[in-house]
């Protein structure tokens, strides 16, 4: 009899929907159907049973091809690489469980690693801004129950966080928002008319690279000061009108994405958006939330923070202190400046996301990539260690974009003999201990 697993958490994006229902075969080996998930989320589950999945570690040969090796061989090679390297980039962590991260950090502390997650090429700039000016924020349920003014700035949940609008931000009816969509005024600020802009009541088309100026204009308008005629292509009359509209609301929220974090000024854009949010709390209630990408990138930041006090780019290379400096201990800088000797990638694909110079630098160093699938990073690695998929074939804790922790679930068995991230990292840790004890 096929079984239905309920309350399943989706290991795709930072929305971390936890209402999925997955039907699995009675031998626990095959996923038969996925309900409630978006198209991308369903794909994540169905991915496990795609033909051609690699189930054993592979080592690159001199001719560039890969040859299957045992887990023990891969673990030994990896541990030796980590112990030998003076400074190793240990990147990724955004698609694995917090429990796995903990083991990874223990290894990093012993071998002198720099632990970084994909915030480094994503919402790291948001984290810097929060370090500079704080953040007034709330959980997504607050948005659902109270928000009557919702701004999407430089983000496009219609594509990147497909169920965000229906679960939390636009359509749901909550305790104080019984009219749902009708009771909310939706704004979209973007340089393009996106699919999110289509569902907005007001679209503000901004010239690319002028977010900082436009946000400064919003703040200046909120204080009743004079503005130039247009700001980033937006007429000042529109700025004044929107600001008055926002002040008239009971509970406003700004969601922002890559349009702010990775255009000119990066953290400064977020900083100004947060400062605007803070200012609006003098008139009404206002919050701001980052649209975090990978499903557990937030979790990596949390675990690093409670263990070392920094949310990403944590440099443990001296082994007796933790340091952090975006621009120095961040992955791309380390690679481009050739400041590390080896790379250990896990649960995120730098090959697909890093600038080409960084990827080239990585490809020239001893590199191990741990990932359930073949991806662009595995192809430039010396060793690829496939593992069970977290959130599908094994469980563990994850943190949603609003930092709410939700447990992911195991719904099917991994292919026979495959290790989970926790099991693999524990074995690498043990091997590192042996090697370092022998030294």
């Amino acid at each position, binding site marked *: 009899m096929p079984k239905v697993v309920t309350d399943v958490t989706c290991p795709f994006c930072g929305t971390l929907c936890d209402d999925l229902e997955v039907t699995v075969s009675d031998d626990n080996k095959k996923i038969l159907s996925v309900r409630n998930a978006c198209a991308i989320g369903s794909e994540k589950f169905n991915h496990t049973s795609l033909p051609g999945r690699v189930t054993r570690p592979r080592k690159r040969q001199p001719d560039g091809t890969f040859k299957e090796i045992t887990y023990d061989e891969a673990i030994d090679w990896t541990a030796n690489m980590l112990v030998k390297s003076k400074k190793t980039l240990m990147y990724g962590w955004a698609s694995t469980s917090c429990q796995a991260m903990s083991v990874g950090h223990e290894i990093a502390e012993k071998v002198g690693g720099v632990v970084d997650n994909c915030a480094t090429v994503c919402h790291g700039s948001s984290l810097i801004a929060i370090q500079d000016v704080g953040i007034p924020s709330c959980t997504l349920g607050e948005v659902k129950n109270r928000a009557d003014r919702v701004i999407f700035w430089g983000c496009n949940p219609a594509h990147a966080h497909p169920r965000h609008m229906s679960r939390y931000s636009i359509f749901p009816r909550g305790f104080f928002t019984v009219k749902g969509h009708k009771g909310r005024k939706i704004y979209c600020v973007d340089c393009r008319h996106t699919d999110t802009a289509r569902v907005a009541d007001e679209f503000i088309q901004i010239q690319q690279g002028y977010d900082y100026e436009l946000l400064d204009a919003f703040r200046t308008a909120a204080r009743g000061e004079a503005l130039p005629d247009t700001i980033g292509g937006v007429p000042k009359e529109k700025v004044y009108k929107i600001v008055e509209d926002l002040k008239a609301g009971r509970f406003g929220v700004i969601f922002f994405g890559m349009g702010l974090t990775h255009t000119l000024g990066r953290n400064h854009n977020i900083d100004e958006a947060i400062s605007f949010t803070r200012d609006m709390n003098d008139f009404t209630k206002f919050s701001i939330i980052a649209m975090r990408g990978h499903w557990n990138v937030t979790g990596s*930041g949390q675990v690093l923070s*409670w263990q070392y006090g920094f949310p990403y780019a944590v440099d443990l290379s001296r082994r007796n202190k933790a340091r952090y400096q975006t621009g120095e201990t961040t992955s791309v800088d380390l690679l481009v400046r050739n400041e590390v000797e080896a790379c250990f990638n896990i649960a995120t694909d730098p090959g697909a996301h890093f600038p080409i110079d960084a990827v080239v630098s990585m490809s020239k160093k001893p590199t191990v990539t741990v990932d359930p699938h073949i991806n662009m990073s595995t192809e430039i690695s010396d060793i690829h260690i496939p593992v069970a998929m977290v959130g599908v074939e094994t469980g563990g804790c994850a943190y949603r974009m609003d930092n709410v922790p939700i*447990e992911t679930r195991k719904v099917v068995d991994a292919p026979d003999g495959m290790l989970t991230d926790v099991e693999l990292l524990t074995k690498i840790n043990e091997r590192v201990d042996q090697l370092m004890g022998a030294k």
Partner: protein
Amino acid sequence: MSEYIIRNGHVFDPVQGIKGDKKDIAVKDGKIVETSALSASAKQIDAKGKSIMAGAMEVHAHVAGPKVNLGRWYRPEDKLFDSHKTPGMTRIEGGKSIPTVFKTGYSYARMGYTFAMEAAMPPLYARHVHEEIHDTPIIDEAALPVFGNNWFMLEYLKNHEIENNAAYVAWTLNQTKGYGIKIVNPGGTEAWAWGLNCLTVNDPVPYFEITPAEIIKGLIETNEYLGLPHSIHIHGNNLGNPGNYNVTLDTLKLVEGYKAKNNFGRKQVMHATHVQFHAYGGDNWGNFESKAKEIMDYVNMEKSITMDTGNVTLDETTTMTADGPFEHHLGGLNHLKWANVDVELETAAGVVPYIYSPNITVCGIQWAIGLELALYAKDPMRCFITTDHPNAGPFTRYPRVIKWLMSKKARDAQIKAFKNSDKVVAATNIATMDREITLYELAAMTRAGPAASLGLGKDYGGLKPGMNADIAIYNINPDNMPSDPEEIEKAFSGVAYLFKDGKICVKDGTVVDNGNKRTFWVDVKVKPNKQVAHDVKEKFLKYYSVNEGNYPVPDSFAPHPYVIAVDATQ
């Protein structure tokens, strides 16, 4: 397990009334035993010239969870040049005002603490709190879920449905692996979700048609209906503002007519926390003054109250509380980075860095108020030492607070060091107070008292045979007390020995063992309640952003639980 006999030390144990007498303490299988129960193989520890107390118990600190961690990561500057590792088995430690989990566990242990209560756990974030507790070495921990602004509670208590509220509290304690009922700015934090506040016990909560006084009384009744080990634990309305002592007295007086009902030996029905922040006179920062005496006159008289101080340590620190509107207010005063998180249906939290500067008169007065509270306390079993870590200062400053409490000389030196010492003296009574807390009183204020208040007095907070072998041995000799107060601070900074569950975890101030850390929580059984089951289901379907099935804290988060069972079905 190992056996130990600790010889020749001066024992301070309010549980047995031992006031510094020389007495041997025997340890076997994690418990304190009669010396006759030891075998010949027991290891000897010479504690000659040292003081022995039970492991200290932290009754109120923010050490684990979402706002603590936000405080950590949004303050990288708190770790700048302050991340280090001691050679040996410990991990990297860091953070001046908000230490990392490793530093938290080690630092408490090095000071002789074996238990810490995380003072505010948002139920929705309970998994996060427990993940951090799990990673904090050595010390036992528990966490208090916040209830004072919870929608279920507001709706039940509006209609005085104590039985339903009790069933809901029991359900939440089970779901979150929580310890008891925490209340923060009752009603005010819900009001804050609309940018408002409740500044007195009679301000109505917007929409919910209930007052803070009704919430507090309802939760006292709930607590005693269930018979929980701890009483309600309250941070009252109008924290941190001049003239708030009247609101504090109004809050304290709500205990009148209630009696503790429980099987844990607990006597109080209310624990008032970080009272320093609630004992302010004047009506602006210019005529701000101490009302510690007024507060303590009432506390000394009313036996149904326990309290902790919330001592200001005069450091740069990071304030953090579920009192969202207060942090907004504070951010507006000092213009340092303000963080806030409103949590659906439950609570909120705010974080703002703060510098308690000895050059600022108000900070000096706050410093004095915290000390005055302890010095006015007639019953050290009901007044405990805290810094409301990290709000009034980091807990790592306990040795310094102890120095000030035990030495008038040290207090006078600090008063003299204030830039405006005459103004501080004029607004407080500290300069006229001669009392010096004794080691015996200190043992009550940091061990036996907190243990009894938390309902753990049977096994913790004392050195009686049968009790848990959590023991701190300090390099301080009561027969030859140091004339230099700095020596007191030094003695309490690093224990000679710390036994946790009968195991030596710290020796000569150095951590040597990660111990056997446990998570304490309270498992309450109540009669099946269809109404509450229905309400829970409905609220998750309609208003929460997570499924009910994903709300509980899995057992794997607390692999070494210490579960206190409460049967409230009778």
